[in-house]
């Protein structure tokens, strides 16, 4: 449910109307800064939070933080166990640093998913492949994924009350997935060849992305000193 909520909570917010190039650049900057230490991720993190707030997508922040904590805790605890096993000195500060690096890194990765401009992606795919059906793929993938996530959540609720074993629920997920695939094929066979990709942007979203990139650049410059 957390995965579903963190990815599909909102409809089309302004966050999704920027350009994927800027989003990709931010992701690269995040990885560079992560390799240089947690403090350098502070400004990009603030910029991302500002984007969520400015586009009224506040509810994404706690869900994304929770999801991002999973790798953070995993790597911090792993490092602690290794230090313990090797008889090395345990340094809580270094574990906290590892946790922060991975949480902030994962959070910025999630931001990329929240900020991906699907219309631009469809447009690019259509131009590159010269195929309308293939151009529809990014939209369709997102649509089907959100549908499956929602249906599976509903299935798990009902199965939980029913006392069904997890493996059975998983089996039913595959059966339902097959049915969804068949129904979408029926519903879209006539439509797919007529798909016209249109890249949709918002000036405000582009301005916010510029701010994020500016803070990324400042952080990188600071990290080189």
């Amino acid at each position: 449910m957390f995965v579903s909520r963190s990815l599909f909570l909102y409809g089309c917010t302004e966050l999704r109307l920027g350009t994927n190039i800027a989003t990709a650049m931010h992701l690269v900057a995040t990885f560079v800064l992560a390799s240089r230490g947690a403090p350098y991720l502070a400004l990009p993190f603030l910029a991302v939070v500002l984007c969520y707030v400015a586009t009224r997508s506040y509810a994404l922040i706690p869900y994304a933080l929770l999801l991002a904590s999973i790798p953070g805790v995993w790597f911090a605890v792993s490092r602690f166990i290794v230090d313990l096993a090797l008889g090395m000195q345990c340094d809580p500060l270094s574990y906290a640093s590892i946790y922060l690096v991975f949480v902030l890194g994962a959070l910025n990765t999630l931001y990329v998913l929240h900020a991906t401009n699907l219309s631009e992606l469809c447009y690019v795919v259509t131009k590159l492949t010269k195929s309308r059906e293939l151009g529809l793929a990014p939209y369709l993938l997102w649509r089907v994924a959100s549908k499956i996530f929602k249906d599976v959540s509903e299935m798990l609720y009902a199965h939980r009350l029913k006392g069904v074993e997890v493996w059975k629920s998983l089996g039913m997920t595959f059966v339902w997935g097959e049915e969804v695939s068949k129904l979408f094929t029926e519903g879209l066979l006539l439509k797919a060849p007529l798909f016209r990709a249109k890249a949709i942007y918002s000036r405000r979203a582009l301005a916010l992305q510029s701010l994020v990139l500016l803070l990324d650049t400042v952080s990188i410059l600071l990290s080189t000193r």
Partner: protein
Amino acid sequence: MYGVRNRCILKNLSLDISLGEVLLVVGRSGSGKTTFLRCLAGVAHLYNLRIEGSIRVCGYEPDPSKIARFVTYVPQEPWASIACPYPFTELLSFTQASMKDIEIVAKELGIYDKLFDSSTNLSAGEIQRICVAEALLSKKKLVLLDEVSAYLDSENRRRIAKLVDELRKSGSTVVVVDHDLELWRGIVDRVLYLDGGEAIVLNSVDETPIYEEIRRLYKFEMFRRYTKSGEIVLEARDVWYRYPDSDRFVVSGFTADAVEGEILWIRGGSGRGKSTILKLLAGIYRPSRGYVRRYVEKLQLVPENPFLYLSNPTPREELGSRIDLARELDLIDVLDTPIALLSSGERRRLAIASAYARASRLLLVDEPCIGLDPWNARRVLNVLDTLRSRGCTIIVASHSRYLELVADRIVEV
């Protein structure tokens, strides 16, 4: 038209449909209505349907690559014809319309506020209206609508009928499969009645042989009411709930008691929070304010899509030792049929039977009649009535007027 194992579904069908005509296709469940539409839409091969004779759509064989620019097809499960994650992108990508035109049509259909929502979070009725909006904006020559009013409340059914009339006036041909004959009176030009593999073309809905039969199904024949013990099995007091991504409360101040052996109907139009209320009553969501108290150990929730409740490959395995329920609920002939091959009505009855087998005191059922034809809807009501007679409390969330036939009490939302 032949189906699986060469079963003849329709024979000797000869028909010309003119430009600007509205044709209503009616018939009992299994008479071939959807098959007919699938053949026109060029999706027959997906269901292993074989056609003898010829079909020409706008002068072409029904090959999707040839007829796509002339035909809009809205299948029985309307959500399956929405390809984009947001309605406004759907309408921009598949029509030549501008955002301004889209907004005008969306306001007419009452879906303006939903344009930027996630397509997945729309109700079935809202999705159907998006599909009709697309049909209007794309100005296609032929529009095929399968069970178009099955998911809609009365207000939206009338809206859709009015819009089909507008489609006809704009020069489109519309072929509608539906059972609500009164809705289409005065709008359709002809009726294609299918029965026992045969097809008859009629000039009006009054001439339809099953007209009286359908009217009787909608009539207020009250099921027998049983005396209640008065014991409360569930109480909800001043329940409020808001989704994390929303500023407004989707449930505000809901209060209700459910008494043993009654059918409590939570009634409201599309998007009023009925499904959310059921999840609150089941304990899946926690109220933002207020409380829900359950006085039974077990309860079951049957979702709007009954498939999501099922967890076994066949009805026999789903019901386990309760094969007696299969006999009572008319599932005995399909006990060993894979659930993927069951009809919507059979899945719905099976889900309710399975839920009852696990929690015979309290069931929560979301939209039990939605998407069903009158005959199957009536069978589901029979099931609910049977379970009520055994002392089961059933809380139903629905906009369907069929529930008037069985509900003991109604809570409006």
